[in-house]
C-alpha cells in the first residue's frame, strides 16, 4: 500500500517512506485533534466492508468535506487535487461504535480521583456524562488505534445513573467531540436473583427479597416524572431537575437504556415501561436468547453484553454467550455487541469477531458493532456504514479487523479528517525498543 500525493507523483519511495515516518513521529507525541482541514481523499483497490452486510472487493471510496461522496467499484473522474491511497490487499471498515462504556469518565479503576462515572444517591437522571467526558484521556488514542471511532459514554451506579452522550474519539474538548448530547437515560433494573461469589468461586444465585420494593420505587419515580411532564404548564409546579431531565423520554428525543440481564426482569421492565409510553433499549440482556419471541414482538433493540462472558449458569451451553448473537440475528432482533469497561473497548472488534465461529457471518458480526449501534443511537443517517452521504468515519486495516491475529490499522478518518494513530502504548513500545536496540 502506498500513500501518495498525486502532485508529487511517484517519486523515490524510500525517501517518501522516511518522510512519512517523520510525519507520524512528529504527530505521535501530541495526538493533536484534527482541525477540520478536510482533504479530498480517494481510497482505491480496497476490500470495502460497508457495515450493512455488503462487501465490495477492489472498491473505491471517495470522501470530501467529511462525507462519503462515493463508494463502489468506479468513482468515475476524480479531481486532481486529491489524496490517493492505494489500499490493495487492505480492508476498509466503518468506525466501530462502542456502546455503554465509561470511556472518558474513568482513567484508572482503582484511583478514585480519576473516576467520574457515578454520583451519590440512587435517582440521578439529571447528571450528565457530557461535561465530565475527558477528551485528553490516555485511553482514547488506544481505542481508535483499534478502530473504535465513536463511543457512547454512559454513567453507571445507583438506579437511574444519569445521561449518556455520544462522542467521536477526537476533539479538543467535550463540546468539540460530542455527536449527540444527553441522548440517553440509564436505568439499572433490580435483579430478581442475586448472584454472589466471584468468578473463581461462583455461588449460585438466591432470590432478591427486595425486588418488589425496588421495582415499585422505579415505577413510582417514572409515574411522578410523567405527571410532571404532562403538567408542565401548571403554575403550581416547582422545578425539579430530575424530572426535567426525564422529560425527553416522552418527547422522543431521549432514549431509555435499561441494564437488565434476567429474562423475567426484561419482560417485566419492558411491560412496565410500555405502560408509561416508553420503549427502552435493553442493555446486557444476557438471557435475551430465552425470550426472542417476546423481544421480536415488542420490536426491542438490544445492546448485548460482551461476547467474552461466562454462561450465566452451570447447566447452560458452555458457549451460550458466544452463540447468543446468532440466535438474535436469526430471530430478526436489532442488536449490538458491546465490550465492558473503558480501556477494554479496544477489543470491541474481537468481541464481534469471536461470534463468527458460532454462527454470525463476518459481515453480520461487523454490523453488530457499526450499523446496528448507529441504529440504536438513531444516528444511522450519519454513522455506522460506508454509504454515500454518511460521515466519512472509517479506518483501513491490513488484515481482518475483527481478528486480533490480523488487525493492523494503518489509517483512520473521523468525519473525513485523518487521525493520528499514535498512542501511549506505541510510544512506550518505541522508547523501549530503542533501549534494547530493536529498531
Amino acid at each position, binding site marked *: 500500500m502506498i500513500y501518495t500525493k498525486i502532485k508529487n507523483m511517484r517519486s523515490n519511495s524510500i525517501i517518501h517512506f522516511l518522510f512519512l515516518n517523520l510525519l507520524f513521529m512528529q504527530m505521535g507525541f501530541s495526538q493533536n485533534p484534527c482541525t477540520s482541514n478536510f482533504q479530498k481523499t480517494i481510497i482505491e483497490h480496497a476490500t470495502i466492508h460497508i457495515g450493512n452486510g455488503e462487501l465490495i472487493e477492489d472498491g473505491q471510496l471517495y470522501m470530501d468535506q467529511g462525507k462519503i461522496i462515493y463508494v463502489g467499484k468506479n468513482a468515475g473522474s476524480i479531481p486532481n487535487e486529491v489524496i490517493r491511497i492505494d489500499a490493495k490487499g487492505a480492508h476498509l471498515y466503518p468506525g466501530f461504535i462502542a456502546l455503554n462504556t465509561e470511556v472518558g469518565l474513568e482513567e484508572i479503576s482503582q484511583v478514585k480521583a480519576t473516576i467520574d462515572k457515578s454520583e451519590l444517591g440512587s435517582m440521578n437522571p439529571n447528571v450528565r456524562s457530557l461535561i465530565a467526558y475527558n477528551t485528553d484521556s490516555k485511553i482514547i488514542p488506544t481505542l481508535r488505534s483499534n478502530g473504535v471511532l465513536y463511543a457512547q459514554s454512559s454513567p453507571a451506579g445507583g438506579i437511574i445513573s444519569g445521561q449518556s452522550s455520544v462522542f467521536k474519539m477526537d476533539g479538543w474538548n467535550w463540546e468539540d467531540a460530542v455527536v449527540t448530547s444527553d441522548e440517553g437515560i440509564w436505568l439499572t433494573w433490580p435483579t430478581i436473583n442475586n448472584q454472589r461469589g466471584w468468578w473463581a*468461586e461462583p455461588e449460585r444465585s438466591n432470590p432478591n427479597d427486595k425486588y418488589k420494593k425496588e421495582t415499585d420505587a422505579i415505577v413510582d419515580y417514572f409515574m411522578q416524572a410523567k405527571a410532571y411532564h404532562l403538567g408542565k404548564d401548571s403554575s403550581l409546579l416547582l422545578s425539579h431537575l430530575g424530572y426535567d431531565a426525564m422529560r425527553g423520554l416522552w418527547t422522543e428525543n431521549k432514549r431509555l437504556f435499561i441494564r437488565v440481564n*434476567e429474562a423475567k426482569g426484561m419482560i417485566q421492565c419492558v411491560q412496565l415501561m410500555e405502560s408509561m409510553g416508553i420503549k427502552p433499549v435493553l442493555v446486557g440482556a444476557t438471557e435475551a436468547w430465552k425470550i426472542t419471541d417476546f423481544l421480536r414482538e415488542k420490536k426491542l433493540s438490544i445492546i448485548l453484553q460482551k461476547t467474552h462472558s461466562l454462561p450465566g449458569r*452451570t447447566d447452560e451451553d458452555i458457549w451460550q454467550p458466544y452463540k447468543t448473537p446468532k440466535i438474535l440475528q436469526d430471530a430478526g432482533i436489532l442488536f449490538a455487541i458491546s465490550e465492558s469497561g473503558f480501556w477494554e473497548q479496544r477489543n470491541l472488534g474481537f468481541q464481534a469477531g469471536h461470534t463468527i465461529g458460532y454462527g454470525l457471518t463476518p459481515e453480520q458480526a461487523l454490523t453488530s458493532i457499526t450499523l446496528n449501534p448507529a441504529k440504536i443511537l438513531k444516528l444511522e443517517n450519519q454513522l455506522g456504514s460506508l454509504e454515500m452521504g454518511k460521515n466519512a468515519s472509517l479506518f483501513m486495516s491490513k488484515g481482518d479487523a475483527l481478528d486480533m*491475529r490480523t488487525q493492523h490499522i494503518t489509517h483512520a478518518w473521523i468525519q473525513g479528517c485523518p487521525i493520528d494513530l499514535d498512542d501511549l502504548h506505541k510510544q512506550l513500545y518505541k522508547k523501549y525498543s530503542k533501549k*534494547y536496540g530493536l529498531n
Partner: protein
Amino acid sequence: MSFFYRILFVLLLLKIDYSVDAQITFPYNGVKHPNQSCYILINAKVVTDPNSPATEKEIIVRNGKIQNIGIGLKRPLDAVVVDLKGAMVYPAFIDPFSSYGMPDLPERKNQGRGQIEKSREESYGWNDALRTDQNAFEIFKVKESNGKSLRENGFALVNTHQPDGISRGSSVLVFTGNESENQMVLRETVAHHLSFLKGSSTQDYPGSLMGSIALLRQTYLDGNYYEKIIRSEEKNISLQYWNQLQNLIQIFSVEDKLDIFRADKIAKEFGKNYLIRTNGSEYQNIDLLKKIQAKLIVPLKFPELYEVEDPFDADQIDLSDLKHWEMAPYNLKMLAENNLMFCITMDGLKDPKDFLTNLRKAINSGLSKTKALEALTSTPADWLGIKNETGSIAIGKWANFFITNADLFSDTSKILETWVKGKPYKVGGLESDDYSGRYRAILGNENYTAEISKKDGKYDLKILTEDSIAPSVTIRFENEYLNGKWKDKDQKISLVFARKNLKDWEGTATLHNGNKVNFQLSYLEALEKKEAKNIQKTDSLTKDSLLVFYPFMAYGWTEKPQQKSFLIKNVTVWTCETEGILNQTDVLISNGKIEKIGKNISANSSKIEIIDGTGKHLTPGLIDEHNHIAISRGVNECSESSTAEVRIGDVVNSEDINIYRQLAGGLTTAQLLHGSCNPIGGQSALIKLRWGSSPEEMKFEGADPFIKFALGENVKRSGGSSNQRYPDSRMGVEQVYMDYFTRGKQYIKDIQTKGAANVRRDLDLETIAEILQKKRFITCHSYVQSEINMLMKVADKFDIKVNTFTHILEGYKVADKMKLHGAGGSSFSDWWAYKFEVYEAIPYNGALLHKQGVTTAFNSDDAEMARRLNQEAAKAVKYGGVSEEEALKFVTLNPAKLLHIDHRVGSIKIKKDADLVLWNGHPLAVQSHPDMTFVDGIKYFDVQEQSAMRKMIDAERSRIIQKMLKLKESGAKSSIFKSQRRRLYHCDSIEEEIHFDENH
C-alpha cells in the same frame, strides 16, 4: 411469699424429682426416699438388636438397667407391670453427633478484617479458632424442649459438643431424660470434635479453607513438640488441652463431600482416625470413600421440593440440585450396598419431626432395616466405646428403648414411649383398648345406632340414622370414662357421662329439663377396616435415573472417558518444536503419549480410532500459568504477610464447571495459584484438566512445587480504605522478604546443627526453606519495574532465582535485567489501567520480553479468558509482530518451561504426553475453536459429544422437573430454591465474604 410457695420455688429451682435420686454427694432438703424402681414389660414384641427379629418377650427393668429379658419370667414382687398389649420395643437410638444442651453460641461480631491477634488474654494459644479448652461436660445443661424432641425420635443417648471452632474441645455423652445434669451424663469426655470452620472466632486467620487446614496441621505438630521443645519457652493452655484431647475418639465435621478427603488426608498425615460427619451427598463419591475406608456419620437431610412452575425460576436450579433432590434419600442405601460404615445423626435437620419420616424414606429407597437400626444403635455404641452398656436390649445394659405401635418402618408406626435410663417418657402414649366399633346408643327410651371411630388418636362418636336430622353428639373420652353433650333434633341438650364396663359403656344422661335417664352404649360389632391410606411413597428410581455423574453436575460423565489410541490424519501440526508447522501430517497417540508424527502413518490395529484432521490444526494443549479456578472456599489467605504454609493443593475443587469450559477452549494444564494479597502467599497446585477425576487425580504428577509471591498495591492493600497488616509500602515489602529469607536460613541451620527432631517444625518457615534450598520455585505477582528489580536483588542476596514473574506488566522496562537474572515472564496480553501500577502497562510487553530472550507466556487469571488463550496469544502477533509460531508458544511450550514441565507437555513431540487440541481452523484465528481436546490421550472434550451432553442435560432436567410438578399437584409442599452458602463462619446472618477479590 408463703412458706409453701417458697418451698415449691426452691424445688423447681433445684429440679428435684422425688422418683429418682442418685446425687449421692448432695445434701437433701426434705425426706429422703430411697431411689429405686422396677418395671416388668409384658406382652411386648421385642427387637433386641438390629439383627434379631421381633419376638415376644418380657423385660424386667430395675434401677435404670435391664435386669432380665425372656419369656415367662418370674415377676418381681415390687415390679410395676406395664402391659404393652402387643406393642413393639426397640433399642433406643444413639446420636454420635449432637449439640444438645449446649449454650447458645456467642453472636459473632460483624467484624471485617483487622483482628490479627487472639482475643483472649489468658495463656491460651495464638488462635481463637482452637477452642481446645471447651469442655462440653462443663457447659452441658438439660434442655427439656430439645430432650423431648430427641426422645420423640427414639434417642436416649447423644454425644454432644459445642460446634464452635476448628478444634471444638471435648464432647460429653448424655442421656436425653429430664433429670439433673449430674445424672444425665454418662461419660464426661468422649470425643474430640474438629472442623474446618472457625466459628465464632473473629480473628483474621484462618480466612480460607486452606488456612484452616494449615492451622490444623501446625497444631498437630505443635502438640507433638509441646512437651519436648515448646513448653520450656512458652506455656500454652490450648496446646495442653489439645494433647489431652488426642486420647479421645476424634470426630471431624465437614461441609461437603470433597472435605471428607481433605480431613482424611490430615488424619493419615498425623496417624489419626476420624469419624467424619458428612452432609448427605456421599453417594456421589462412593468409589473414593471405599478407598479410604471412611467411617461416616451421616445426616438424614433431604432437600425440600422446589418451586418449578415458573420456567425462569426452574432455571435457577442446577441439574446437580435437581438430581440431589431426587437421589438424597438413596444415599444410605448406596453406602450400605458398598459396605461403607456409617452411623446416622439427627443433626442438620431443620425440623426434628422430619427424622423418622426421612428414615422411612431412606428405607423405602432401599436401605435395609437392619442397616438402619445398626446405624442408630449398635454402630454408634461401638464407635463411642459403649457397646457393653448400650446399643441393644440385653441384660445388664441401660434400659434405653422405645415402644412403637407397629413396625418402626411402617408408615403407620408411632413411637409411644421412650425409656431413658429406665424411666418411661411418654411420646404418643401407650395405647389403651381401642373403643372403635358400632354400638347401640340408648338415651332414656330413644334408641340409635352409633359409631365410634378413631382418628389421629382421638375418638369421635357419630349417630347413624336414616332421618335427615340426627342428634349431634360431642363426646370426650379419658381414662375409660366419657362425658359430653347430646343435642337432639330439637336442639335440646342433654349432658351424658358413662364408664366403661367390659366392651360397653354405662352411665346417665341429664336431660334439658333436669331429669335423669339411663345412658348406654352397647357394643355391636367392629368397624370394617378401611384400606390403609395411600401415603406418598418415594417412587423407586430406575437404574437410569440413579445414575451418578462424575463430577455430579451438568457435563459430568456417566462413564469416564478412557485412554485410547487415536490416529489423527492429514492435519496441520503446530509442533512448537524446531520442526515448526507440518502440513498434511498424521499423529498417532497411544498409552497417553505421542507415539508417531509423520506422513501416511497407517493404523495397524483396529483398536486405533482414526480422526480425519483435513482442514484442521493440531496444537499442544494450552497451558495457563496463572489460573484460580477449581479452588474451594478461599483463593487468598490474606491474614498474614506470609502464609507460605497454606496449600492450594489441599483445596482443589474438582467440581468446578470452569474446568470443563476451559477444556472446551483447549486448555489442558493450569497452575492454580494463591491470590496476591500478601507478599508470601500460599503454595500453588498444578493440575491437568482431567474432568471427572478427583482432586488428587487431577494433580500433575511429579511436578516441581511452586509458591505465589506478590508485590505492590495488593499486598499494601491500596484498594481498601485502611490497612493494619504489614507491609504498607513497597519499602516494607522488601523487608518482609529479607525477614523471611533470613529466618528461613536460620531455620535450615538450626535443623542442621540441632537435628530435625529438636527443632519445632514450622510449616511457614519450612516452605521458605524449600525455596532457599531450590526445591520450591517462585511465581511472583508483579507490575512495576522498581519492585521487579527489587525482588531479583533480594533473590540474588540469598542465592536463589525468581523463577517466574507473573503479570509482569512493566517487565518490558527491565527485560534485560530479567534475562540476566534468569527469570521468566507470564503476562496479560493487553490489560492495563485497572489500577495505578498498570498505567504504563502495554500490550507490546510480551513481544519486548520475548525479543530480549525472556521465556514469555500469556496467562489468564480469569475464568473466561482461560477458555480462549489462543486469542490472547494472537495478540502477540498484533502487538509487536511476534511470529505466529512463537506466539502459540506463549500459551504452550513457554508456560511449560516456566512450570518445569516442558519435558512432558507443551509441544508435539514423540514420547511427550498426548495433551493435544484439534482446532477447527487456524489456532490463532478469532473464530476458531477446539473440536477435540485430549489430556493423556484421553478425549475429554469433543464438540460433537458436547451437543449430545446438552440434550441429556435438558432431558434430565425436564424429567425431574416433571416429577416435581406432579408431586406438587398431589399436595406436597414446596419452597423457592435457595442455595447453601459454604462459609468459614457458623452464623448464617453474617454477610461477610470468605474471599477477597485481591487478585489481579
